[in-house]
């Protein structure tokens, strides 16, 4: 009966029944509305920050970008040449590739070990260590790479600051991302599938290689792309591993042991310089870097759009 629905007088159930009609001034409703507003505002702040950064980079970067920035070398601060940063784009590619070559195999195999072969405590500690590693400030990764690669190369007399050192530093930053995303995606692969494979007489390795891993590939690709995108934008670890160079990087073994330019370090160097020409190149380089990361993320999205199992 209607009277029962709005009956707020005490009854024995311990509840007081409110009206069925929504009342905007009820404390519960008001709290709900306010919290919705706060959440919306915080969401807007996050979006606004992204929009502000991107739009300003687009605005300043587009003003300074031209085809020559992709093909030419950095200019002298004074003089007629406008120059570009083709060497830094190539250098970033080379070092990210070196980083990916080290971190993707190691990371994927480590994750396979974690989900498929290890058990209990050891796996827990490795996961914990990976999480710590992903929290290590990138400059520390750079110091480590400096100690391991740069100083060693120096001792051996083969070089010092180099693309190899930079790539190694980046691989340390990429490794935990790849381990974690691969680990998670392998855990999502249904156990039914593993049992199905084992049930037709597959060994553990056959099961992992032919059934589990293919099912997890889209997620692994995303992880790797995210890691690449993160590494491409890193400056600190490259500052004292790859340093910088105003010449073209070379893909010969000797070339990979030479100081190498990268977009991030170029932005850092040129943005704090007093020369207008360099500052304008820094804006253009920022734009290129942002677009590269953006494109990588979009590729990752498309790779995962393939149906996951």
């Amino acid at each position: 009966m209607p009277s029962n629905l709005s009956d707020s007088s005490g009854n024995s159930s311990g509840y007081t029944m409110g009206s069925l009609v929504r009342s905007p001034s009820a404390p519960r409703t008001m709290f709900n509305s306010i919290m919705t507003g706060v959440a919306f505002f915080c969401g807007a702040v996050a979006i606004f920050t992204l929009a502000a950064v991107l739009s300003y980079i687009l605005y300043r970067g587009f003003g300074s970008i031209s085809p020559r920035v992709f093909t030419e070398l950095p200019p002298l601060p004074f003089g007629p040449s406008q120059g570009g940063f083709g060497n830094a784009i190539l250098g970033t590619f080379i070092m990210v590739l070196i980083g990916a070559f080290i971190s993707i195999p190691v990371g994927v195999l480590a994750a396979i070990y974690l989900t498929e072969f290890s058990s209990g405590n050891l796996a827990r500690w490795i996961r914990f260590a990976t999480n710590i590693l992903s929290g290590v400030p990138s400059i520390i990764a750079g110091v480590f790479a400096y100690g391991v690669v740069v100083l060693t190369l120096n001792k051996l007399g083969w070089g010092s600051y180099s693309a190899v050192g930079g790539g190694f530093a980046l691989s340390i930053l990429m490794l935990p991302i790849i381990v974690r995303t691969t680990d998670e995606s392998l855990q999502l692969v249904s156990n039914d599938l593993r049992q199905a494979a084992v049930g037709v007489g597959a060994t553990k390795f056959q099961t992992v290689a032919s059934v589990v891993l293919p099912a997890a590939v889209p997620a692994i690709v995303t992880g790797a792309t995210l890691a690449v995108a993160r590494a491409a934008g890193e400056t600190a670890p490259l500052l004292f591993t790859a340093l910088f160079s105003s010449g073209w990087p070379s893909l010969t073994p000797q070339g990979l042991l030479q100081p190498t330019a990268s977009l991030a370090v170029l932005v850092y160097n040129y943005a704090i310089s007093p020369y207008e020409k360099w500052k304008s190149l820094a804006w253009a380089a920022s734009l290129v870097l942002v677009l590269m990361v953006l494109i990588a993320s979009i590729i990752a999205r498309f790779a995962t759009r393939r149906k996951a199992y």
Partner: protein
Amino acid sequence: MATNIRTANDTDTVLRTEGLNVYYGNFLAVSNVWLDVPRNQAVAFIGPSGCGKSTILRCYNRLNDLIETFRAEGNVIYQGHNLYAPNVDPVEVRRRIGMVFQRPNPFPKSIYDNIAWGAKINGFKGNMDQLVESSLKKAALWDEVKDKLRQNGLSLSGGQQQRLCIARAIAVQPDVILMDEPCSALDPISTLRVEELIHQLKEQYTIIIVTHNMQQASRVADKTAFFNVQTSEKGGRTGYLVEYDRTEKIFQDPQQESTKEYISGKFG
């Protein structure tokens, strides 16, 4: 040892279960199962939830090995070997004793590869196209999929997927096929088709099927084993084999009171 005595007259017993105890950690899940599975017959395991019928089934192809805390005592004799002897390779066991699972679980590969993969990894050297065709025909799926063998196995309906899984199990030419509630995720028509299939498969294979559906057991099985569960003083629930006999006997003239109650629907 019992092993040596019994291999002599093993002509029509495929799997011999001798005093099998299954533990998960310290917890005794199933105790003291003695049960012989005759060749080219279908044996059904029935019983209430938690009675250990699936656990016992999974002992026959050592699938329980995937569970870390699992431990088995007693013997499961197959072709003169105790399956749990340390020198037995579980991968070889599973190749000879195939399995169809409760939920259809085709590989996320093409229909063709779903069948070919198992054959490939087991070193099949013959004509693969022929094997795929004959396996699908035996599983009564060929006519429905022959024009779309390159399609993903997951694109099939649930009942078709389950028959694909049966075809996949057949393709490695096993000796025994274990079925763990193969119809519980299927509609009645698909169920009927799978049951018809079991009748045909019996001529070549030995089948052990776990089912919650007593009508299904009476329809497909030559012999039926009824498992029940008892609660120990410490509160652990342990399954045990109550009665094992010809299916008509179990359903028409059970010797144990609890079997009678279970099949007449008084519990479970």
